[in-house]
């Protein structure tokens, strides 16, 4: 659950309604259009369709009220109403006659508490004159009946319009939400919805569903009713004239990105320079800096197609696969223990990592890669994909974790909330959750030929998961899809086939988004593994097209998509912003400054220093290829921890932390990483001193090997002015050490830009 959105959610629920004119008008309009049975007439009031929405709208069943797992003040409701049967039982039967007074309905504790007539921790939720009060009273007057089995159930909700563009800040819009039911009927349920927004600084929405355009930008607003959540895209255009310069496009990515920018009246930045591109793409594709020779060759080339050729060349290196193996190693949580009684053995992790590395260097199709992982069977020591089932949940097989993590790894969906209640900000219900968990109920693990070895296998006759509320066996059902035929089959293989089918947008878009995020530091849906209705893509057509191309046009050959991305003008835009895009952080109108991953940064440091680092207990020559990540190198564990290397305690992509902070700066300044390399058996500066008699070329060489560019004239003169006027080698060595130290401590070095 996103705490930010949750807080927003709560604050809106409690927020005093803004009684400005438009809002009142909207409410009146909404009331007039309400097609539900008028309360107070000879009409049946439904517990599920009329009473429970009152609970949700009033916040009774929220997590901080009676919806908490232990309830509140002795009374518990299911969180956001995921268990109507249980709620009905607790209202009427848990303490008969306590909460409901059939003889004198208006004296029911339920109403007396809600109106504040009797002391209520939650305060007064509505008045006796309110419609909420009248609905509940009417239901009580009717004898507080439960719904019959034939009673219609909500099947979905929708905004009347799914996107809206405000021409300027300062205007507002009253949203309208309609629910459809199993009997085919529809109801305006706007006033019973809970509303929230993704960007309150641009377009907040209030309790009544009124959207206010505050400033230029993009946002989404969401409505929740029953177990459904829907979103609406809102754009607020800036004031003033706007001329779209029609910048050139290199491929479909640019067309889709620029279309969005044009729509938002944002101008993209200029194209980045050759040296900027060289450094950016080399780090992104190989996790390394361009060498001085590569710099010289690229800068000297006048080939019009040299950028594309560079992309192809970099992707042909093993390092390209190693970059992705490192990422997958984190997402798949390769984590081992020297004592196999406590965790998965190192040998298993080693083989697993090298298998993944091989898949990446040989560019195995991503759908095939996923299929192999999900179908992993046999020995964790000889059948590496089977480690999918020993790494995610070490110690014992855990279908709960396997199902949750599978959804997160391959679809970016976090289903955890739905384990205990229907997802509050997404479409996933408990039924969805347990039906999906059933795919993993048959996974078994046993010891193999030795204590380190585990065999993973599947009991095809295993019972499906049972619903925790009523114990129903939950037949295997794909997330957001149909029931699966798993009879006498390995359910995981059935799941894998569904997941990787070219038409499955959940998988293909998540894979495309993870790739995209690698090159932009931010996903089109961000975070990449928090896909939900309330976290929509910032550019939906772009997301859809990338996923479609990856799956259908490229048959999950990720290199082809990466080539598209790196070849696009969007990727090659400068990080320098203009007045229209300086605030943009979501629409890719300029290149963003991205701090390098911890392992890549460590490798770039040692590369720039020409320092051979010996990793403890490892034959690896780079942190990037340490099979459990660089942080397992005891010598430099502090470095990797400080720079946010994923600990692999979960499959969350958020574990790889790339924000910059003071600790990192202090470590570079005071820590041993740079200092040790400069002091111990240095080779770089002595070599430069051997080859150059004057200072200028040495400074230029240091700039190229660290920042992949030559110094500006100002920089050069500035540095030259600080150098001692001496020919004494030791003094000069120290002076250039200082120059190199300064370059390595610059933010320009630490960031990819």
């Amino acid at each position, binding site marked *: 659950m996103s705490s930010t959105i949750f807080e927003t959610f709560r604050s809106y629920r409690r927020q005093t309604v803004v009684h400005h004119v438009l809002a009142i008008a909207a409410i009146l309009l909404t009331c007039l259009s309400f097609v539900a049975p008028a309360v107070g007439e000879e009409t049946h009031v439904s517990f599920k369709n009329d009473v429970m929405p009152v609970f949700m709208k009033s916040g009774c069943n929220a997590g901080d009220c009676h919806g908490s797992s232990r309830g509140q003040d002795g009374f518990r409701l299911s969180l956001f109403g995921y268990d109507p049967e249980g709620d009905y039982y607790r209202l009427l039967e848990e303490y008969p006659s306590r909460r409901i007074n059939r003889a004198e309905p208006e004296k029911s504790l339920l109403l007396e508490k809600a109106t504040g007539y009797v002391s209520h921790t939650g305060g007064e939720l509505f008045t006796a004159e309110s419609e909420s009060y009248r609905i509940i009273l009417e239901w009580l007057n009717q004898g507080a009946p439960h719904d019959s089995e034939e009673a219609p159930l909500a099947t979905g909700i929708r905004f009347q319009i799914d996107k809206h563009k405000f021409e300027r800040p300062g205007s507002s819009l009253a949203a309208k939400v309609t629910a459809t039911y199993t009997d085919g009927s529809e109801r305006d349920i706007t006033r019973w919805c809970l509303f929230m927004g993704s960007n309150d600084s641009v377009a907040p929405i209030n309790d009544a569903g009124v959207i206010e355009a505050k400033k230029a930008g993009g946002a989404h607003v969401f409505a929740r009713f029953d177990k459904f959540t829907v979103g609406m895209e809102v754009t607020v255009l800036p004031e003033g004239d706007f001329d779209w310069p029609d910048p050139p496009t290199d491929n479909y990515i640019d067309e889709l990105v620029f279309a969005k920018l044009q729509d938002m009246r944002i101008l993209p930045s200029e194209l980045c320079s050759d040296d900027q591109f060289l450094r950016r793409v080399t780090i992104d594709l190989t996790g390394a800096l361009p060498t001085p020779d590569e710099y010289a060759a690229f800068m000297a080339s006048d080939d019009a197609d040299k950028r594309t050729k560079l992309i192809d060349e970099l992707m042909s290196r093993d390092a390209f696969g190693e970059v992705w193996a490192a990422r997958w190693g984190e997402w798949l949580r390769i984590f081992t223990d020297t004592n196999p009684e406590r965790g998965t053995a190192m*040998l298993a992790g080693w083989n697993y990592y090298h298998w993944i590395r091989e898949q990446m260097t040989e560019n195995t199709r991503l759908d095939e890669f996923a299929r192999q992982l999900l179908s992993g069977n046999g020995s964790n020591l000889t059948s590496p994909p089977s480690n999918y089932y020993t790494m995610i949940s070490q110690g014992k097989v855990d279908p709960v974790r396997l199902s949750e993590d599978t959804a997160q790894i391959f679809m970016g969906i976090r289903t955890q909330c739905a384990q205990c209640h229907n997802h509050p900000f997404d479409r996933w219900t408990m039924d969805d959750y347990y039906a999906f968990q059933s795919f993993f109920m048959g996974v078994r693990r046993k010891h193999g030929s030795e204590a380190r070895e585990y*065999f993973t*296998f599947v009991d095809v006759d295993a019972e499906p998961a049972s619903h925790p509320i009523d114990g129903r066996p939950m037949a295997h059902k794909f997330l957001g899809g149909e029931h699966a035929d798993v009879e006498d089959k390995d359910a995981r293989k059935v799941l894998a086939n569904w997941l990787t089918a070219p038409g499955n947008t959940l998988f293909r878009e998540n894979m495309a988004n993870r790739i995209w995020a690698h090159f932009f530091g931010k996903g089109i849906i961000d975070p990449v593994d928090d896909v939900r209705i309330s976290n929509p893509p910032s550019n939906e057509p772009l997301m859809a097209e990338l996923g479609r191309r990856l799956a259908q046009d490229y048959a999950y050959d990720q290199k082809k998509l990466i080539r598209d991305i790196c070849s696009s003008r969007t990727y090659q835009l400068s990080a320098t912003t203009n007045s229209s895009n300086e605030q943009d952080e979501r629409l890719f109108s300029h290149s963003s400054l991205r701090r390098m991953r911890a392992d890549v940064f460590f490798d770039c440091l040692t590369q720039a220093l020409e320092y051979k680092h010996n990793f403890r207990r490892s034959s690896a020559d780079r942190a990037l290829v340490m099979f459990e990540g660089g942080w397992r190198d005891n010598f430099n564990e502090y470095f990797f921890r400080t720079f946010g290397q994923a600990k692999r305690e979960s499959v969350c992509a958020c574990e790889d932390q790339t924000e910059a902070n003071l600790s990192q700066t202090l470590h570079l300044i005071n820590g041993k990483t740079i200092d040790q390399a400069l002091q111990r058996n240095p080779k770089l500066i002595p070599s430069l001193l051997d080859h150059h008699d004057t200072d200028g070329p040495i400074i230029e060489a240091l700039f190229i090997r660290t920042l992949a560019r030559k110094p500006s004239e100002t920089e050069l003169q500035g540095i030259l002015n600080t150098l001692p006027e001496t020919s004494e080698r030791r003094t000069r060595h120290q002076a250039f050490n200082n120059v190199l130290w300064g370059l390595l401590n610059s933010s320009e070095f630490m960031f990819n830009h």
Partner: protein
Amino acid sequence: MRNLIFVKSCLHLAFLALLCAVPQSASAVEWSADFVLPQLAQRGTMVTVRIQGSGLQTAEEVLFYREGIRCTAIRQLDTVPHSHNGTPLKVEPGKAIELDFEIAPDAPLGEYYLRLRTKQKLSEMLSFWVTQFPVVPEEHAFVDTGETRNDSPQYAQRIPLNCTVSGLGCSNERANDWDVYRVALTEHQRCTCQIISARLGTVHAGGLTDMAIEVRSPSGKRVARNNRSALFVHDPVVSFIAPEAGDYLITVGQQMDSEIRNIHYGLHIGDFPRPAITFPLGGQLGDELDLDVFYLDGSRGKLKAKLPNEVAAFENSMVELTTITDMPEIPSPNRFQVAAFPSVYEVEGHSRPENAQTIDQPLPVSLNGIIRTEGEKDWYRFSAKKGERYRVRVYAQTLGSKLDPFVWIKPAEGNPSRRVYEQDDSLWDGHDWEGHHYRHQVKDRLDPVFMFEPDEDGDYLLGIADTRREWGDDYVYRVELQPHHDSVFLYYKDYPVQYTIMRDAIGVHRGATQTRPFAIMNGFGSQYDGPIRLEARGLPPGVDFDSPIFTKNDPVIMATFRAPADAKLQTALLELIPHAVDENVNLLGAVAQTHASNAQRGGYSPLFNKTRKLGFAILEEAPFDISIDEPGIGLAKNAELDLKVNVRRKGDFTGAVYLEMDWLPQGVTKQPPLIIPEGEDVGYYKISATSQTVTGNYRLTITARENEGGDPFTGVGFHYIGSPFISVEVMEPYLQIELQRAAVEQGKRGELVGKIRHLRKFSGVATARLLRLPNGVSLIEEPAIKYGQESVVFPLKIEADALTGQYKEIACDVKITDEGQDIHQQSGSGVIRVDEKKGS
């Protein structure tokens, strides 16, 4: 295969010398015999090997566990070669010896367990291997010139086909070292490369040996790669048909970065066939069979097998494939199960219970088949009679099959039985061995073993499948429904501190006794619970063996060995056979001893040796001997007994002696180890019995060693001496005292009365004192008790500042002197209430 620039700095060499000067074990533990090098040799040759360890100055003899190798000479060494460059490094006296092994021309191939006997000790178990091929030493990296040697294709070491390389992987210098060999093959020639490394057991601690092989063709194509095998688990093996003529590069090394160093290996490289598996996996005594052979190189073939007419018990019912076929000898040949009962072969089309293959002949029988398709289940139908007992034992992983069998038996339709059997894996006892359930996980235990005991006459269905739903033509199985025999096994009891893993051999000093407790384990499905006696076979002449009758009251059976003072120093292989005391009972039994011989980490031992015979040696006279005086009285329940232990010192030994009992009956507890100080000859070892102890006569011994000067973990440097048995009777207590409740007052005198119940007559006068009295309350005088007295009064003095309140668990300790020996017995549970002084 990395280019590593070797910097020949003096500092570096000094560091290397420092590293290599210590024994090659990564552990700081001192072993009697740490390792033997080289660890393999060709049959029919003489080889000089080196053993490093401790206390080797008096090395005299090597005990081999099977015939084929003879040690003809032992020489002391004062230097050992550097493991990589051969530079002589000085070693302390007694740390290294050189031995000549003469390997008979007809010596069986494979592993030989051995122990080294010095005058003071029989060493830990080591392992030596015999190959039919000439042994070629690896040209290590850093030899002579300081350049890399065989760790890259450029410097690949050329070797002939059909040889065994004796190599060293993972040097001290790097986390991962790869050795590359070059061998010439003709087109279509078979080549098999087979590693022995984990099985060598050279590395005792600090890591695990996990090697890998990769073979590339002359054109650079990878033709084979393996890091684990169904046949040998940790040790890889590849076999391939050469696709082209030319030089092939064979690379071997630790498959992952490793903390361990000096991993020795043997690499058989030859054109010998390498069967992966055969079908069937077994047959009946005397059978002549046509075997389908699945070779590791992917080819298939046929072999004619002539099964022997008799086989030995337990695992010895498995014979080597090369002994029953005309296949040439190969290293580590496949094994083949031979049984006394007939075999039934699978007929295709029996994958459902309704079309189960019907077995016509009566049990016992074996079922032989293959799981060929995904999720396949093979069903058999057979008849059984109520009251019969069978051990259902599956042979698949045990014999190298890839199948992970899952087996079930259920009644067929019409059979009223409701009993269903399902089994996936097995415990150690199903294989007639003992071992730790987790640490000693081996592939054999993936084969299910269970008892089938039909409770109704009628038809039953047996099904078998692969647990993982894997399949293939080499997923072969053999299910034996074996007739059951009750059995008993024994092994060294391992819990006493003195019985460390290295004391897994029996060394008896001349003129002294050696004591050993053995754990008794009921054989699989065994229902025998009567008394057992031990028979010792193979003892040297003059050695006395003594062992009390074992009863089911205790899981331990004791044994003592005593060598005469003039016994010849020698070794022997000892068999201990458990027998039912009732000679009419047919009880099978043997030693089932596992020896951790290999890499261990966190107590985890991936490979270990198993023996049915125990190493035994007569050692030179120890510097002391011990005995316990027979106590004149018994040990009463709830009482203590001091056993008088006598140390008889010899020569100039005056040091302290450390004593501990290895075994006591259940309910009898012992004091912490007794140390008889330097120069003293007598000590008292206190034992006590709880009320739960079973009364009866028990035979006890005690074990002694020097208090210092050795390694308590490995036993190196110590002499272990046992006392001859003494008899101690655990008996009912003399009396019971029931303390009455009492109320006393601060500053006054009071009394506590106890009622006496006499259970056993004693002479003389007993005295009693109170235990656990509250602060400020004291016993004025210990009252005397005579036999027949009905009560006793304890006079108490209560101080003015005694803490008030009620105090429970007041007990009394009664000292009874009987037969001249003091017996302390505790009794009673009283309550005292201390009141405030009245008027205060």
